[in-house]
């Protein structure tokens, strides 16, 4: 029959996923359980909102998809008619030959002789010997010449078919072309919205999450949505159209054969359900083992030195082997079971094929249908299974898409930062006086960590924040910069409550040099100029000079134009710190927030950093997360933190006099080794 029995056709590139390369992404590992969304309907509604601007394109996609499918559907029927024409021409020829062979030798049939006329001339006893069906054929035959296949008719139909196929291919391509555009634009918009949202969310949101979580919204989740849009939308339309169309045409050919063909479906559905149920169990097991083994590898390789130092090699390999064996057990079973789908579907398909061939053959013998019909029918049966499998899978696809889309939309719906003051106060030129009045704050409402802080800092004064690691020294920074808002009380800059200012105006007043030197992938000049967008090269160099950075920058390949790489590890930690100081220097703000911690910096660079920081602080109100005694001793105010609280405040002498936490911290830190050193 003119039908492709595409054994293993499922691998055919129905839906290339370009980002992953041909089918390597999902591979034969189908049958993984789908993730379920919490609110399917609501999510879909939001998704539809994103699609609304493209409704014209989408309508076009739908029309093209339906048209392409319809053309594809009518073709087998026409091809069947071609076959019928061939068959009837061939059969007529055979009958003619038989009739002619029975004529007396040398007898010529005159022009205009038909089968009916001939039969009248024949003796009735002869006629009775001819089967009834053949008799019919003979009656309608024109015996004046040997009947041939109706090439004119076939040619016409063939041309029609070529036209239909071309149109179908064209529409199918147009549909895909438009849909790619739509899905890419929607993807673009989703990503853009996420990036805009990042700026609007309070830091609280990010401090409670890993970067990976947010990152996977931008990449994985958006990709999932994009792929579904790209493929599933038109697939649904195509599949449904195909199923309905084929069903109708099949019924017009033969209802008996249609029933047989449909009987095959429940069989395959039951079998598939059975297998999928089983394979999902193994699939989950496999994922668990895979997670375990990856975890073990990651852990052992990152702790390689420790593992070696403690002679843990054999222990590690033994643990690995046992997980590996476990993984093998579930991996081969899940691969085998999910791989069973294909042969089973194919076997069931073959069953249907045989059933239709036999039934069709029998019906043809009895004159109910023609050979071309059988051919068309088998072709339809083949086209039928794929859309049904697709439709069955669409529920899963939509669900995991909704789950991904839901995470994206949840992110986009997160509560944003408190709105700016209605009539924001702008400080023209700030002097840098800061007052804390009765400030109460906690990261969560249940746990207040700052309970009524009062402090007054005059312009140009220096505040040292001290305390052991993890005592929450950055809390003050968070409050000053309004990364977090105070729960009660107020912080005032030059007498203005910082909540009455625009956040950007407030932050413009502060320069910031943190221990975590944030530099980005770009040139050194870009990184320094980050604090002042329209800075000239001269200004950048001047700032770098003041920050003792100019010297080493000149020594780098490319100087100011050198690109910092992705990890920004092509300059040393200390050099990075100098660059951030230069950045703050250039921003030239009335107030400063500094973190003195300089870990993994060599002595000479540390001296440079110290002196650069000292220069930076001159004349500016500074809040310093202090590590050096000199800074602490010279501070106008020391805030002592422990477990998130400000437990003491005052000058160095006052605090030593109190003989409290600060005093004990100070003693343990600086006093003891000095005694021992001489001992």
């Amino acid at each position, binding site marked *: 029959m003119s039908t492709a029995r595409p054994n293993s056709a499922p691998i055919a*590139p129905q839906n290339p996923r370009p980002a992953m*390369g041909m089918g390597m992404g999902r591979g034969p590992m189908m049958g993984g359980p789908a993730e379920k969304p919490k609110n399917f309907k609501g999510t879909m509604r939001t998704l539809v909102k994103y699609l609304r601007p493209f409704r014209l394109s989408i309508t076009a996609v739908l029309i093209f998809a339906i048209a392409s499918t319809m053309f594809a559907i009518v073709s087998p029927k026409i091809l069947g008619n071609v076959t019928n024409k061939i068959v009837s021409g061939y059969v007529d020829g055979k009958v003619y030959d038989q009739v002619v062979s029975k004529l007396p030798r040398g007898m010529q049939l005159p022009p205009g002789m038909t089968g009916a006329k001939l039969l009248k001339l024949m003796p009735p006893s002869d006629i009775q010997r001819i089967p009834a069906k053949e008799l019919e054929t003979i009656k309608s035959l024109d015996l004046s010449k040997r009947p041939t296949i109706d090439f004119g008719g076939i040619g016409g139909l063939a041309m029609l078919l070529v036209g239909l196929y071309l149109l179908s291919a064209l529409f199918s391509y147009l549909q895909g072309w438009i849909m790619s555009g739509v899905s890419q634009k929607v993807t673009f918009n989703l990503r853009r919205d996420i990036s805009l949202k990042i700026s609007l969310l309070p830091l609280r949101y990010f401090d409670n999450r890993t970067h990976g979580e947010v990152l996977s919204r931008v990449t994985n989740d958006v990709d999932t949505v994009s792929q579904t849009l790209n493929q599933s939308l038109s697939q649904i339309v195509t599949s449904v159209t195909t199923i309905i169309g084929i069903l109708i045409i099949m019924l017009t050919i033969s209802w008996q054969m249609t029933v047989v063909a449909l009987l095959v479906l429940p069989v395959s559905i039951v079998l598939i359900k059975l297998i999928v149920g089983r394979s999902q169990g193994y699939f989950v097991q496999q994922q668990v083992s895979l997670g375990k083994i990856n975890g073990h590898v990651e852990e052992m390789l*990152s702790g390689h030195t420790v593992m070696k130092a403690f002679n843990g090699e054999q222990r590690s390999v033994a643990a690995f082997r046992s997980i590996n064996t476990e993984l093998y057990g579930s991996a081969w079973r899940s691969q085998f079971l999910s791989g069973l789908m294909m042969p089973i579907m194919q076997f069931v398909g073959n069953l249907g094929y045989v059933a239709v061939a036999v039934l069709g053959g029998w019906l043809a013998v009895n004159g109910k249908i023609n050979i071309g019909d059988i051919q068309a029918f088998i072709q339809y049966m083949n086209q039928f299974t794929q859309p049904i499998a697709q439709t069955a899978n669409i529920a899963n696809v939509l669900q995991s898409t909704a789950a991904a889309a839901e995470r994206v939309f949840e992110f986009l719906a997160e509560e944003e930062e408190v709105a700016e003051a209605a009539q924001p106060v702008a400080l023209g030129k700030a002097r840098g006086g800061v007052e804390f009045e009765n400030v109460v704050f906690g990261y969560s409402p249940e746990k207040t960590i700052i309970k009524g802080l009062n402090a007054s800092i005059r312009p140009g004064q220096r505040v040292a924040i001290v305390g052991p690691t993890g005592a929450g020294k950055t809390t003050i920074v968070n409050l000053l910069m309004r990364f977090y808002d105070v729960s009660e009380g107020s912080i005032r800059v030059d007498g203005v409550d910082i909540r009455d200012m625009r956040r950007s105006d407030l932050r413009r007043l502060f320069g910031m040099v943190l221990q975590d030197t944030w530099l980005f992938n770009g040139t050194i000049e870009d990184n320094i100029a980050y604090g002042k*967008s329209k800075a000239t090269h001269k200004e950048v160099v001047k700032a770098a000079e003041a920050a003792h950075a100019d010297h080493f920058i000149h020594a780098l390949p490319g100087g100011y134009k050198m690109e910092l790489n992705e990890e920004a590890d092509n300059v040393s930690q200390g050099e990075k710190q100098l660059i951030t100081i230069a950045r703050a220097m250039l921003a030239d703000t009335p107030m400063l927030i500094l973190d003195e911690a300089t870990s993994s910096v060599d002595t000479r660079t540390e001296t440079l950093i110290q002196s650069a920081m000292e220069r930076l602080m001159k004349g500016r109100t500074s809040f310093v997360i202090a590590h050096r005694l000199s800074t602490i001793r010279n501070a106008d105010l020391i805030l002592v933190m422990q477990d998130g609280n400000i437990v003491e405040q005052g000058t160095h002498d006052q605090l030593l006099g109190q003989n409290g936490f600060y005093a004990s911290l100070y003693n343990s830190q600086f006093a003891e080794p000095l005694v021992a050193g001489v001992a």
Partner: protein
Amino acid sequence: MKTLKLLKYFAPYKWFLILMLILTYGQTTATLALPDYMARIINQGIVGQDSNVIFSNGLIMLLIALFGGACMVGVGYLASKVATGFAMRLRDEIFTKVESFSLLEFNTFSTASLITRCTNDIQQIQTVLGMLLRLALMAPFMGVGAIIKAYQLAPSMAWIMAIAIGTLILIIATLFITAIPKFTQLQKLVDRLNLVTREILTGLRVIRAFNTESYEEAKFKNANQDLTDVNLFVNRLMVIMQPAMMLILNLTSIAVVWVGAQQINMGSLQIGDMLAFMQYAMQAIFAFLMISIIFIMVPRASVSAERVAEVLDTEATIKDPKRPIKAPLNKGLVEFKDVTFGYAGAEEPVLHHLNFTAVPGETTAFVGSTGSGKSTLVNLIPRFYDVTDGTILVDEVNVRDMRQEDLRARIGYVSQKAVLFSGNVEDNIKYGDPKATRDEVSHAAEIAQASDFIGQLEDGLESPISQGGANVSGGQKQRLAIARALAKKPEIYIFDDSFSSLDFKTDANLRKALEKETKGKTVLIVAQRISTIIQAEKIVVLEAGSIVGQGTHSELLRTCAVYREIASSQLSEAELARALSETDDQAYQGGQLSTGEAL
């Protein structure tokens, strides 16, 4: 070509593979036989008006289909066993190999890359192999079989198949030659977008402080736009594939019918045979489609295979000697004799001609600026690296003559970056000595100043530690790492800058407790803070990989300029403390003394 070496891991599956070959042959024969019988049904049954032929052939077809299905299930079973089994062996092999590597190999490959090779790359190989075993064996059988069958039926129509397959290969080749460079570009753009996003997330505070949100948004938008553009191009290119395939298939059937009709008319072809030919043509086309996909897939997967093979090909540089010597003494004496060390391929050695002795019962400390080689020096003792020149003796035996295990059993090592393993607190401490009793574990925790926080945990010693110790703070991690080394009760302790995450108070208490615990042992400390090592019996000062001074704190202050520089940069506090105690006019050391007393 290293990939080919991996083929040897197929050896245990030789019979499986042969059986698969036989089953695949059976399967394709079955599939190819069906159209034959179909043709018989048409030629003899329908055209010849014989229902018996229809039923008997139908029955045969059913049996053939069943046989083919069974073969295919068998192939699937074998393929999954071979693919996953192969992957298991390979995974085992590569992991065991990597575990035997020294730090040198870790540096050449990078830890992250080794992790990917042990996990993702193997998984990739497994997936592709599973698919290949099912398809790669069948497709050629199928393609060749279908062509032969079709040719036997109607040699005069073979040219139709040739054209169809030729066009197919041409289209696929063109598409992929255009697309593959774009795939690479796509990956780069995805990375770029990730990078920009990660930068924004990590720099959130800085971005807000400098009010540069719009700048970052613009940067993101550019990355987003670039990615979208290339994605769109690739997608629109790949959308050609399906309609083109369908068109080829359909036009082929029309051509077969058109040409076939003429042959039938001339009596050189039967109707059933024409229809069978059509089916063989389809099967051949699909087979070639599969073959071309395999050709596209294999090179991409072989990248993973190559990366795995590369690791398996690498020999660990540090190996146990053939005739290991067991050190007769068990005291912990460490001697460096003219030790020079440089990384392979580096122009300059990191350490030059080092000579010193670390004696049991004493603390030997190493100071120097970043990059002076302190950590590298102590890493040589447990043979994480081998010396380039000179010798290191532990208890008077060259470390290279001992078994690594024996050597390391004597050493309690606490690394710069504290690393914990998943499990619970006790497991982690016992990692030093799996036979340690609960009391010994508690004692180690006590000394390491860890019992306070362990006591506060819900399940005490049994509290879970997540992967890499992510659920405890840096300081806690460091204390547990110290407890782990203590539980081992070694002769030699190495603390590689292990106190940096501790606050000063804990640091001081810990050192006091350690002093008792490590009595009579050899203690080596690498430190940044002078205060940590000020009381060491011997301080070794390193500068650019050479020893520039050895002695006690007070000796070095007098004799070593580098040490004085480091000390004064850090101990400026001490001067201030001295100022505080109003003993300005006293000598430097005297000042310190009185400061101590005053407080």
